């Protein structure tokens, strides 16, 4: 099952399984529509409901336009408590603006969306965890482009990160994806008592991380827990390591070229990143249970030794969703730090939900523009919206969403955990170093096939050069 929380079960097990971050957040579009309000109302001539400039200035309660004509459905993947949080968010929005928007979540979102669109029953607005699916719809002429709807691309790239915006650029060169809320995987969990007792410091750089691991081994502590097992999806946890290293050591541009195959899969920059991962993975005594067994350890069980009083491990890298698999009641024994920098570069790797508009009525466009403002992302951020929200929050305990806009206040969050992650994601978005998991963006034959196999083989001793070359030769032609 690789699903960390059932909601992202999608055709491609990609981010689904990896999970869904429990925490994610929202964003804004401050300047985005200020000058283009007129275009917006033209699009569907929905008399007077959208009064152009209002949102532009919308620093206040994010868009105060009269939305009473907005009567449509928003379709997405979250169900369960996360679905309730979406309902809560939409409820606040409806109350505030007089709109009558409904949220609908589906466990089989990808399939259902495809069926509804093909059946001529497309939702007005949907948000997908799979950015790769956006262009399928766009290229078939089923989506409205951001240019057509009057979004300000330049300011969106500044606010939501160019990387994420570029994921929605399709064959005609126009933008179709609207970044909403991300999830975050560049996290290293650690056992706090071990760090306190050993006097260890949170590593700032990757080299520090390596020397910290050596120090631990010298002190008789096993530094790392790994687990690459995930049934038919085995191998993906290893790819996250490589991606987090590539984006830092080679940069966002090279990262993009890599998943688009504009540079070969076995480019020296990638090989160097894998070898760097090897400094930790194959470090002498670094890995609990031995590297040859890592492929047999289920990723859900991999963090458990963090909680052992003796004979466990000190650190484990995995997305925030893994907290769901911690032993109940013992969650406080661990904390996390951001994956350290490499050559001075920080970054954040994860995924995210991207909005797409099928039917650009003025109300729908207005609503979407509102939702990605810091004000409304703040409502979506936590149950109460923290001290920063004038509008409250979505009202569902335990659900926090990370910011998809660089200006979402950290005070929107209730927990320190979410605040810490939100800060890392926000900074990365501002620097354009927030990237999506590359294996989800590669063709499935690689990203869910040979790349996983390669990392499993690598973990069991096949040399870096050989495994990377095998992935390169497997890259589908055309």
């Amino acid at each position, binding site marked *: 099952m690789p699903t960390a929380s059932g909601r992202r079960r999608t055709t491609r097990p990609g981010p689904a399984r990896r999970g869904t971050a429990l925490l994610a957040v929202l964003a804004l579009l401050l300047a985005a529509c200020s000058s283009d309000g007129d275009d917006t109302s033209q699009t569907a001539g929905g008399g007077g409901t959208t009064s152009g400039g209002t949102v532009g200035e919308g620093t206040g309660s994010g868009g105060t336009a009269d939305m009473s004509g907005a009567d449509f459905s928003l379709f997405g993947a979250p169900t369960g408590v996360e679905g309730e949080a979406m309902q809560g968010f939409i409820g606040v929005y409806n109350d505030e603006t007089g709109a009558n928007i409904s949220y609908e979540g589906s466990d089989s979102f990808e399939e259902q969306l495809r069926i509804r669109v093909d059946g001529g029953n497309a939702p007005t607005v949907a948000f997908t965890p799979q950015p790769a699916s956006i262009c399928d719809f766009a290229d078939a002429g089923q989506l409205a482009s951001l240019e057509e709807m009057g979004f300000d691309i330049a300011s969106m790239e500044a606010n939501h990160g160019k990387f994420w915006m570029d994921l929605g650029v399709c064959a005609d060169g126009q933008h179709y994806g609207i970044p909403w809320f991300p999830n975050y995987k560049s996290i290293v969990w650690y056992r706090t008592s071990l760090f306190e007792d050993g006097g260890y410091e949170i590593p700032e750089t990757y080299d520090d991380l390596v020397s910290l691991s050596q120090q631990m081994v010298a002190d008789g502590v096993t530094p790392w827990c790994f687990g690459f097992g995930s049934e038919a999806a085995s191998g993906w946890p290893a790819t996250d390591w490589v991606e987090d290293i590539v984006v830092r050591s080679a940069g966002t541009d090279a990262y993009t070229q890599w998943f688009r195959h504009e540079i070969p899969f076995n480019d020296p920059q990638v090989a160097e990143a894998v070898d760097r991962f090897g400094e930790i993975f194959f470090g002498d005594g670094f890995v609990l249970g031995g590297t040859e067994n890592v492929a047999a350890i289920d990723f859900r069980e991999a963090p458990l030794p963090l909680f052992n009083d003796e004979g466990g491990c000190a650190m484990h890298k995995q997305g925030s969703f893994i907290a769901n698999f911690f032993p109940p009641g013992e969650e406080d024994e661990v904390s996390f730090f951001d994956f350290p920098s490499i050559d001075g570069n920080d970054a954040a790797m994860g995924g995210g939900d991207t909005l797409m508009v099928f039917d650009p009525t003025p109300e729908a466009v207005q609503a979407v523009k509102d939702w990605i403002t810091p004000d409304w992302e703040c409502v979506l951020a936590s149950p109460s919206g923290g001290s920063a929200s004038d509008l409250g929050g979505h009202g569902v305990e335990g659900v926090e969403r990370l910011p998809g806009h660089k200006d979402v206040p950290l005070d929107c969050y209730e927990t320190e955990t979410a605040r810490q992650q939100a800060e890392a994601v926000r900074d990365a978005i501002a620097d354009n170093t927030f990237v999506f998991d590359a294996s989800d963006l590669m063709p499935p034959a690689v990203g869910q096939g040979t790349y996983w196999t390669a990392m499993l083989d690598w973990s069991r001793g096949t040399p870096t050069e050989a495994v990377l070359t095998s992935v390169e030769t497997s890259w*589908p032609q055309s």
Partner: protein
Amino acid sequence: MNSQLAQVLTALVVGVGGIWLLYWVADRLVNLLPVRAAAAVRPWVFVGPALLLLTVYLVYPAINTIVLSFRDRQGRGWVGFDNYADIFGDANGRLAIRNSVAWVIVVPVLAVAIGLAFAVLADRLGRRTEAAAKSVIFLPMAISFVGASIVWRFIYNFRPEGFGEQTGLLNAVWQGLGNDPVAWLLSEPWNNLYLMVIMIWLYTGFAMVVLSSAIKSLPVEVLEAARVDGASEWQLFWRIVLPMISSTVMVVLTTILIIVWKVFDIVFVMTGGEFGTTIVAERMITEFFTFRNQGRGAAFAVLLFVAVLPFMALNIRRFRAQEEMR
């Protein structure tokens, strides 16, 4: 719930009633024809719908799959034999074929051998005990491949040192014998055998039940005559029983063999085809649905189809021969 029930009932009534009506009307129409013409037409009228369905659901997809196997990944342009060349040129493709061949040899032979042994031995038990023993052996047949795989995941479970107590049954036994725990599913190439065991466990019961009924239908006089002539039980089995049930053995063997060619669930659930355990049917599903490479998926499907064909033919010929003997 109620509306679902109503839907099911409506579907049943409309479906069954509709078919009945169709045949009834067709029969009436045929009756209107002159007698000789009616006699000639009637069989076709009755077989026609079945033939049509067979064509639509079986023949057409089969031909379409073959066509698709000569096209590219989207199923558009022609690529000739490229998909097949890729399969045989790719180490993983060759491995899948090798593993599949191993599966179709090992699984049917062991399932039949063990099933036959049980059938013969159970025959010697009292009636009650025999029924009970056979039920236990037959029970796994009721479990789906995926369900069985999950059960066996627990048996093969392995935890490296530091990850807690071993919970896998096999490792418990293995450790009890004084060995270190083993990551069974990672131990190439033996992990293939460990996966085959699951299938054998599932199908031994099937072989046992069919062979047992064949043994029981043997004429008692023959066996008694042999015993009177001083044949040992061992000789009785090899010289009398086995030859007399040989056609049933062949049918069971080929039936299991065909099922084995097609099994993919076990491998998919247990290892996802990693660690050198990939097989043809698993490649087919993965290429087609995960990698969305229609051409190569179809080529694997055609390989399976071709591999199964001779055994199908064999099975049908055996079956006919058996029918004629009756």
